[in-house]
């Protein structure tokens, strides 16, 4: 019984990070209708940034967010401005912008290979003061770094939700996602909104990278693990849905946690793919019927 409870809790904690990664993906998809294939690579970049910040200056990943967040926002903002926008413009009227998909796929492969050449194929970890620290909840042992990650996710998700609903910029982002032409007619600078949305999406991934690093490793292709998880999560939760992304993340986390507990770890991946494929085939609009928020 305790094992099952512990498995569920650990799954939820890890799943929240998957949800966080997927949140940025679903935002970008919701606004631009583009799947950012390079999403995991941005996570990898964020993790390396956090890693070197910690190694060189000793700044804690959570504290380092003050520095990494603006950098990653700018990274996302200018990636959209310089790389994606020109391609996106050509296909503005196309309903299925394939070229943008290809561009982000190219960015994915480029960033991963570039990191491989730059940092080498080594697994890197950091040692924070709370590394290995645990708290006991009854008989269940919880790793502190994972708990922090979970709490950060919850806080960030609430802040993000309020931002979208209450602020003018958030409303402009939602309006652009709903109908870009109408939004433009209302005087919204949609090019800027795309830049900002992409920037925010990458900044959220930056948070995911920071909370992940204390209990995970960083590696040039670490992004692929989370990339594919994030794709699964967004499809599971319904593309473009915020609660769907978080809930989908938790489901994947729990499934994975159970898999790791009760069978060979490698098979767990197979189960996740099988789930993904069956959702894609049977219920592509997502498991919960959440409407896209935009």
């Amino acid at each position, binding site marked *: 019984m305790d094992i099952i409870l512990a498995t569920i809790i650990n799954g939820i904690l890890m799943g929240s990070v998957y949800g966080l990664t997927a949140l940025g993906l679903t935002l970008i998809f919701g606004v631009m209708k583009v799947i950012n294939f390079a999403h995991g690579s941005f996570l990898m970049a964020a993790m390396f940034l956090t890693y070197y910040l910690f190694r060189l200056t000793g700044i804690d990943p959570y504290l380092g967010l003050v520095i990494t967040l603006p950098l990653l926002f700018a990274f996302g903002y200018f990636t959209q401005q310089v790389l994606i926008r020109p*391609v996106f413009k050509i296909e503005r009227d196309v309903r299925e912008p394939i070229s943008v998909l290809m561009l982000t796929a190219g960015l994915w492969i480029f960033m991963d290979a570039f990191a491989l050449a730059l940092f080498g194929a080594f697994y890197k970890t950091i040692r924070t003061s709370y590394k290995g620290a645990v708290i006991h909840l009854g008989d269940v042992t919880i790793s502190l770094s994972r708990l922090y990650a979970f709490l950060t996710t919850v806080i960030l998700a609430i802040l993000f939700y309020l931002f979208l609903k209450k602020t003018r910029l958030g409303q402009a982002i939602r309006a652009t996602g709903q109908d870009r032409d109408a939004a433009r007619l209302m005087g919204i600078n949609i090019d800027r909104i795309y830049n900002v949305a992409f920037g925010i999406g990458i900044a959220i991934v930056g948070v995911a990278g920071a909370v992940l690093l204390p209990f995970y490793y960083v590696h040039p292709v670490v992004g692929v693990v989370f990339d594919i998880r994030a794709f699964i999560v967004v499809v599971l939760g319904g593309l473009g849905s915020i609660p769907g992304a978080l809930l989908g993340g938790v489901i994947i986390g729990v499934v994975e946690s159970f898999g790791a507990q009760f069978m060979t770890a490698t098979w767990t991946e197979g189960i996740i793919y*099988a789930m993904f494929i069956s959702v894609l085939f049977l219920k592509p609009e997502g498991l919960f019927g959440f409407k896209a928020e935009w």
Partner: protein
Amino acid sequence: MKKERGQAKTMIIDRTPWIALIGIVILLVLPVFIQSPTFFQFMILILWYAYLTTSWNLVGGFAGVLPLGHAAFAGIGAYASSVLFIHYGLTPWVGMFAGAFLAAIVGIIVGAPTFKLRGAYFALATIAICEFLRVILENTQKFLGFDINGARGILLPLKGHSPINYQFLDKRYYYYIILVMLAIIFYITYRIAQSKLGYYLTAGGEEKEGAEALGINVAKCKLIAMAISTFFTGLGGTFYMQLVHYIYPRGIVSLDLSFEIAFIAIIGGRGTLLGPIVGAVLLVPAAELTRTYLGGSYEGVHLMLYGAVLMAVMLFKPRGIMEPLEALYRWVHGKFFLQPLTQTDRGE
């Protein structure tokens, strides 16, 4: 813009058979002049990639979707023919068709539900199938009673020089085989591009709703393209197996290979007949050089080149390298031959 595109396409179709024929003749007589095995190894690799990308192009280029998991179908072909050979002694010449049919069936299973959805879903589904298949192969020792040895992969029993078993000691045989395979897939693509199916595919890829309104069953056309494409990719997998005699899940059913196939075709010019071949001729040697000089210690560094070139192509020449090549061809033709080819569009 639209007009220019259509016109450019007709031009390619008009001239391509001649260019292709000249190319094939040159490649056929090449072994007479060059004997080096290294050279053939190199040429076989280029032709193999050209073959795979041309197959990919049928669905990725003409059908206007983005398959990112074609390595899975090459893997299915390679595994199926080899397993049949090992267990029943069935010659891969026959076994390869079993593998190809299996690949086509899987291709249809992937395509059927996802072609009706947004393009991104199909791309995601193909990635998922590729990864799923790899996980299954890596974790299964026996599949339906066949030994596939999990992550260790399977080794082809060597028979020496045995044409009946698709095994040769001299690389030149493989060179001619892949050359013929490339010629066949090229001819099929050429015929499809000219056929009703080809026009339906282009129409459905560019303007799905419009094509459907005209009574074209877009999803069905895409499925046919997918079936043909995956069938030939499966044959390509068997060829690879016969060439290297050894296969393991990560070696062939990998996202790296899937991306390579897609990227080469896109960079060359997707939806054009010669584009994938031009892409393979330019990129495979470049990637091999990068791999040799940079990638010795790290697997996958050569992909940096592919990613960078792909992004540049998307930004500056969305129709791929074929675009400037065609412009050059047209310029040369206009300069030195009779009249310019583009006279019909002059008035616009």
